């Protein structure tokens, strides 16, 4: 991380993607798309872990390098910063259902870095951020439609 100027760092996010038991269909497509995002300079992959939660709720964490044939992810794997600590595993796995596998991805939003830097240079401070769930958008649209229909 020392080679990066912190003032130029883009926002760092994580996501946990769960693959429920019986619904797993790994074709390599995810890896290809992730590599594409990294190669395009959209994101920088900081860390990846694979979590497995058994039927009793016990969690096992795997390094990407222990996941077998990495395919397109080989190059990314060599550049991981291993930001996540063992303590994080339990916190991240909390959201998983028993019997599922999850991929954890930590990434820097390179696309946002120049904008974030410019905002900081202008004296701006990020005081809130978040994601609007699609469910909320649908609810908003449906409420709008209802309003137009009933005029209420």
């Amino acid at each position, binding site marked *: 991380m020392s080679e990066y100027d912190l003032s130029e760092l883009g926002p760092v996010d*994580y996501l*946990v993607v769960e693959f429920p038991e019986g619904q797993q269909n790994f074709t390599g497509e995810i890896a290809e798309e992730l590599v594409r995002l990294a190669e395009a300079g959209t994101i920088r992959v900081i860390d990846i*872990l694979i979590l497995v939660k058994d039927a009793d709720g016990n969690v*096992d*964490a*795997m*390094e990407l390098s*222990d996941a077998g044939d990495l395919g397109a992810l080989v190059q990314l794997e060599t550049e991981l910063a*291993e*930001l*996540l*600590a*063992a*303590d*994080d*595993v*339990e*916190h*991240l796995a*909390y*959201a*998983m259902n028993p019997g599922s596998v999850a991929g954890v991805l930590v990434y820097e939003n390179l696309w946002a870095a120049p904008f974030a830097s410019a905002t900081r240079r202008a004296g701006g401070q990020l005081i809130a951020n978040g994601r609007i*769930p*699609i*469910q909320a*958008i*649908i609810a*908003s*649209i449906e409420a*709008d439609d209802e*309003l137009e229909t009933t005029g209420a």
Partner: protein
Amino acid sequence: MPLRPARIGRVGVVGAPVAKAAVVTAAVTPGPSPVAKAAVVGAAVTPGRRRRI
């Protein structure tokens, strides 16, 4: 498989147990026409839509 030693004993960056997010596919699959529903969502984030106050 064990984690790499560098991860052990370090302070974590995820401060607390994370809550499960609503599953996105559940929002677009119900109803008579998921495709139509997806189109509605697309329209909602299309430039030019104005809020009603």
